[in-house]
């Protein structure tokens, strides 16, 4: 399982210095929450781990990001291989306009896997992992769009899991969901961390408190404080952290 290490990372979009000298470690098989006000850089920092920022004009990074000991910004790294290992889930569920089955196997098929037995097993395994199998197993040909928002989000996670990642990046995965779906997804995240390393960006302080082992507070591109979640929420070391989590600003 992979530990993630960021060492003296700076990110620039053109002249704009958006991430300032951030170093942190994400332990394997844990959930780390990134919190902070809008525009603080937490989503930008999240996207460093699967090199999604590479597509942004003017993006430049200094420092290093290691996953399992390997520098993912090494020129020899194949981005497609990286993204098999580092999956991402977005705020708005984004299933493809295909069946439930085709959504889950999509990543495997584009890798060239055609064996139906392998694909069927991957579908069952992934849907069980996200606690969706019992709800959809009798109609895998149903359109993904026919699922509820919470089910669609779990399907997107299943799709990510099917290709066998070690790391899951989640950018506000429950902010578009109702409270019950949110609760189910949070339970899923707690379950998934046994086998995956998870980073979640969230605006919901209580969610960070409920599900994360470690919380990192970002502000204006800086990492202000990172600590075990219980310590950060009961006795933050920085006054800025205290003011943010108590709602005095942000």
């Amino acid at each position: 399982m992979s530990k993630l290490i960021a060492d003296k990372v700076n990110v620039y979009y053109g002249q704009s210095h958006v991430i300032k000298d951030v170093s942190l470690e994400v332990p394997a098989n844990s959930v780390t929450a990134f919190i902070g006000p809008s525009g603080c850089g937490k989503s930008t920092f999240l996207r460093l781990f699967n090199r999604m920022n590479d597509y942004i004009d003017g993006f430049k990074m200094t420092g290093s990001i290691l996953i399992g000991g390997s520098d993912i910004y090494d020129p020899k790294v194949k981005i497609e291989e990286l993204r098999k290992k580092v999956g991402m889930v977005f705020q708005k569920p984004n299933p493809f306009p295909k069946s439930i089955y085709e959504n889950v196997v999509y990543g495997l098929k584009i890798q060239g896997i055609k064996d139906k037995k392998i694909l069927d097993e991957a579908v069952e395994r992934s849907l069980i992992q996200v606690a969706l199998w019992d709800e959809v197993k009798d109609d895998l040909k149903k359109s993904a769009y026919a699922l509820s928002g919470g089910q669609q989000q779990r399907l997107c996670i299943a799709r990510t899991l099917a290709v066998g990642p070690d790391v899951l990046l989640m950018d506000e995965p429950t902010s578009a969901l109702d409270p019950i779906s949110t609760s189910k997804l949070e339970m899923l995240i707690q379950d998934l961390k046994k086998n995956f390393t998870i980073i979640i960006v969230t605006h919901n302080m209580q969610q960070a408190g409920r599900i994360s082992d470690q919380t990192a507070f970002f502000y204006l591109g800086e990492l202000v404080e990172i600590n075990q979640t219980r310590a950060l929420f009961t006795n933050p070391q920085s006054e800025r952290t205290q003011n943010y989590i108590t709602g005095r600003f942000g």
Partner: protein
Amino acid sequence: MTQTEVELHQLKLEVVNMWKLVSEQMKKSMTALATMDKKLAEEVLLGEKRVNQAEIDIDSHCENIFALFNPVANDLRLVLSLLKINGSLERIGDIAFSVAKFVRKSDGYNYDYLIAQTHTLEMFEEASDLIIDVMKAFETENTQIAQDIFKRDKGLNQLNRSAREFIINYIKQHPQEVEECLRVLSIFRKLERAGDQSKVIAEEIIFYIEAKVLKHSKK
């Protein structure tokens, strides 16, 4: 102010009002004991209802804050501390009440000698002062004042031990007055407990301000 700040401010005011009420109860109870004033004792007995109601109201307010505002960090420590301080103040209120009950029921025996020799009124004064001073520590968020409470409580404990020794010896010499002696002993033991409650409150104030847990530790 955010809504959370408004609620916390309101909660603090309620607790300070309860503090003042309990402090007043202790003062009246002490005066009632000093002069065996049954009328004053009756006032304390009636006042106990207000103390009990205040405790219930504050508990309920704390519960609402937890449920609705999810306090964290210093806000969480504040609400936790006030919840415990509330309980301690109510217990001090009970002490004032039970001394007043003693005065109301007193049967014509002259307790002046026993009260004087055991320094009960000095203990009462110190226990009452501790309550006021620990309130100052809270209002000014001054942990130094809170720390001083620990030493002073030790002083109160010492007075208590001396008083107990006197009563034991007195009972040996005057066994026919054992009931009256036990009543006086009961009073100063309660005062010693009042001092302990002020110490607990001081610990909670330090927990709130400095996030340090001093319970069960050497201070």
